[in-house]
């Protein structure tokens, strides 16, 4: 069984909305699919919406960091949007501060962040 999350494209931005708790294999598939799609669609940015996720453990957290790093290598930027406050508190306490991952509070702010010039958008 290898269910895959749909990756939507808006212009040169790829959008993934995670709507339910993912099995580990789906998390790994997403990582691979996004890398392929960035190249196939010449995408400039990736937005991952996790507003529906009730928890993010170190496995999913690592995937977010890895996707951010992969996209950087492929000349694209990743913004993770919609993290719930309880998830943010838990992740930081767990020890995962997602240092290399760009975030925004919602989809609109995430898209705006990707429109900014690289220097000011990247922390």
């Amino acid at each position, binding site marked *: 069984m290898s269910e895959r999350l749909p990756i939507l494209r808006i212009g040169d931005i790829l959008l993934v909305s995670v709507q339910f708790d993912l*099995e580990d294999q789906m998390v790994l598939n997403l990582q691979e699919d996004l890398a392929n799609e960035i190249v196939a669609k010449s995408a400039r940015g990736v937005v991952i919406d996790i507003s529906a996720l009730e928890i993010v453990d170190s496995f999913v957290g690592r995937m977010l960091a890895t996707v951010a790093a992969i996209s950087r290598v492929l000349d694209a930027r990743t913004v993770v949007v919609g993290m719930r406050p309880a998830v943010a508190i838990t992740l930081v306490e767990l020890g995962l501060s997602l240092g290399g991952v760009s975030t925004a509070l919602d989809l609109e702010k995430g898209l705006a962040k990707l429109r900014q010039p690289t220097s000011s958008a990247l922390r």
Partner: protein
Amino acid sequence: MTAPWTAGEDPQVHPIARSGDLVHIRQAIRTLSQECRLSLVDQTKMITAASELARNTLIYGGGGTVSSGLVSANGKRGVAAVFEDSGPGIADVEQAMTDGWTSGGGLGLGLSGARRLVDDFQLVTAPGEGTTVTIIKWVR
């Protein structure tokens, strides 16, 4: 704290044999945490800790079980989960509890991170004798 279960509240036992089981375990802990009326942040912490420990049981312990249920002590209620495997055990517990240390390919946050997320944490292990981790989150 080896047997946290209170009389009359039998724990549910879930297998941890493949990665798909982690989804069911997170769901079971979520249901218990809501039943117990943990705060939203505490629910999130408990489910996340359980997810980390269940993955440890699977990857490092070669699979096992988790028993979960409601517990009470000194007028307080809480959610408990006991992760058991009969894997290789942990030789150096202090090292295993250190942030960033891993014997596998992980981030090394599972044990140390899970301990920070819960109220009670107990690790019983010996080389060749498997590992048992008990966690409890109390209602505040």
